[in-house]
């Protein structure tokens, strides 16, 4: 779960790291009021889950209240790489002497945690990695031992930060690792971590991705409430379905993440465009199937539906009954093509047989079902 910058800063602050005072607002008047309380100059910063905010005009320096009003009106509603700005973070402006970069994430190959620290912050780390890879000091942290002090000191020295702040940097990095580990983050990144004229290290930007699986240890409801989702994704999420909205016209329902991914691929391969990825999991009973069909049915772009089920433990006749019952409950706008295979597939197909029509079709293989559903979607569109 990606946090907004201001939430990331709240997260860091809760682990004792130095962040600037600021307020999250959603209106121009709110921005002005916040700036008056904080005292100008302030930064007006778009809160979106994407990079490149600065280049897109989403981060502005406001020396006075008039500038706050101007910038806030310009940035609210701005489209940054497809993300519409709805939240602003108004923060007390900081003077900057140096800009550093630091992050922790999992190195999936090494199966340990990877820390990256650089004296060249403030630019995209991918750029630094290409142009001057030696400027990034890396450490691999054993998840059992954690980040040890002596290891952390060597890391700071390797990164060539200002020697005056070595101890301060160590303290901050140990806290950052603690936040990453105890806070169950998949990623923590500070870019830039700044050195102020007063010689203080300070968190100026925050990128945090929390692990949704760790919800039993942390209260994530406040962060979940502000997750931007399209309406389809929100509806599916509420029903406990694994759904990713795509931009095509063939609605896709599968029992399994790998199979769903594979189905999206096959629809593309035969020249169609899938409207979504939807995994209903192992059960595939009538309730789950009806919920999935409702979500697909409410997507106005969907012109045909491809249900691709492989019975493992789930038996074919259960799946067939689920589909039949779900169709009785939900009035489906688009024709459905079913591919049913695996355990007791013959029994399942026999149950579906009497219900077949030009609204409900069956295909013997995944490929043929994909072709039929794509042809139906194309026919409806033309």
């Amino acid at each position, binding site marked *: 779960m990606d946090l907004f910058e201001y939430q990331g800063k709240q997260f860091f602050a809760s682990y004792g790291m130095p962040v600037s005072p600021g307020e999250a607002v959603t209106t121009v008047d709110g921005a002005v009021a916040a700036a008056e309380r904080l005292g100008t100059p302030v930064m007006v910063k778009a809160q979106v889950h994407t990079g490149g905010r600065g280049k897109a005009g989403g981060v502005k320096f406001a020396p006075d209240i008039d500038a706050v009003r101007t910038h806030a009106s310009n940035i609210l509603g701005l489209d940054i790489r497809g993300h519409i700005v709805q939240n602003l973070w108004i923060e007390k402006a900081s003077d900057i002497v140096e800009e550093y970069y630091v992050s922790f994430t999992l190195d*999936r190959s090494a199966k340990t945690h990877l820390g990256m620290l650089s004296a060249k912050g403030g630019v995209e780390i991918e750029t630094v990695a290409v142009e001057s890879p030696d400027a990034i000091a890396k450490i691999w942290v054993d998840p*059992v031992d954690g980040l040890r002090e002596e290891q952390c000191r060597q890391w700071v020295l390797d990164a060539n930060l200002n020697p005056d702040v070595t101890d301060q940097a160590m303290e901050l990095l140990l806290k950052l690792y603690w936040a990453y580990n105890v806070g169950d983050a998949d990623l923590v990144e500070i870019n830039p971590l700044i050195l102020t004229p007063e010689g203080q290290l300070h968190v100026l930007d925050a990128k945090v991705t929390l692990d949704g699986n760790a919800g039993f240890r942390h209260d994530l409801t406040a962060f979940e409430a502000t997750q931007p989702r399209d309406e389809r994704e929100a509806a599916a999420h509420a029903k406990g379905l694994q759904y990713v909205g795509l931009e095509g016209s063939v609605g896709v329902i599968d029992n399994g*993440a790998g199979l769903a991914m594979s189905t999206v691929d096959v629809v593309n*391969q035969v020249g169609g465009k899938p409207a979504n990825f939807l995994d209903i999991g192992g059960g595939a009973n009538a309730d789950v199937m009806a919920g999935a069909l409702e979500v697909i049915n409410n997507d106005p772009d969907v012109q045909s539906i491809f249900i691709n089920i492989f*019975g493992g433990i789930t038996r074919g006749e259960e799946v067939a009954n689920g589909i039949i019952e779900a169709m009785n409950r939900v009035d489906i706008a688009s024709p459905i093509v079913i591919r049913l295979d*695996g355990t007791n597939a013959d029994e399942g197909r026999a149950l579906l047989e009497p219900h077949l029509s030009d609204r409900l079709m069956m295909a013997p*293989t995944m490929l043929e079902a994909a072709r039929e559903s794509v042809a139906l979607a194309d026919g409806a569109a033309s």
Partner: protein
Amino acid sequence: MSIFVDENTKVVYQGLTGSQGRYYGMLNRDYGTQVVAGTNPKKAGTDVEGVPIFASVADAVEATGANVSCVFIPAAGVRSAVLEAAVGGVELIVVITEGVPMHDEAYFYNKLKAEHPHVRLLGPNCPGLISPGKANIGITAGHIAKEGGPVGIVSRSGTLTYQALYELKQKDIGCTTCVGIGGDPVPGTSFIDCLAAFEEDPETEAVMMIGEIGGSAEEEAAEFIAANVSKPVVAYIAGLTAPPGKKMGHAGAIVSGGKGTAQAKMDALAAAGVQIGQSPSEAGDIMAEVVAQL
């Protein structure tokens, strides 16, 4: 032969008294797996349909000779369940549970590696493994697999694993062992572990590998195959058209920063001499040709 588990494997189920553990534990027993024990500290001395319940894995191992543990404990308890199983003395720990936090996975993976280097971990978030006709541990439907060989299967995805087993059975091709390594960020057993074991296994003559987007496990497997695997390998990779930045169901299945794409994985595998199917059924067809030429 088979890899990791066979007819002599004795399994203790952590969580046998829960609904999922009981359901699949009994299905595994019906298949013919030696289901010898369950654990639950509050129900030691009782039984589940004749299978004795012990307070700990150590007690179960001592009393029954169990050498594999299968974990159906809810996500919050998996970290301590895995450590308990390792200390308890089993050789293989199979974690079916999904939704285990990444930091827990990284912790117990490295803890086992350091302190219990001879204990194999499979999963979390995996369907388990089956050596058809010998042992089925986890949630795979046993009857969709044909006994014998010559094909070994290793897969990151549950349903696509079943699909592969089923396609091979339809073509009358048997399977030595089918291992689901799971789709999480820190899988206990990797493609490489399975490829190495299949290479050593005399009855496995070809390997089917099913990967998906995210991470670099398939690329690492390709390097390993080029250097170490003499047997033919056929692969399918799911997620060719997955949009970047979207997690496709599994925690580990995400293309980010241009890394982990299906195309890069296919290219790496093809360069290592692996034959690639563009769909699961095409991979099945290719495997049928490979088997016919063995």
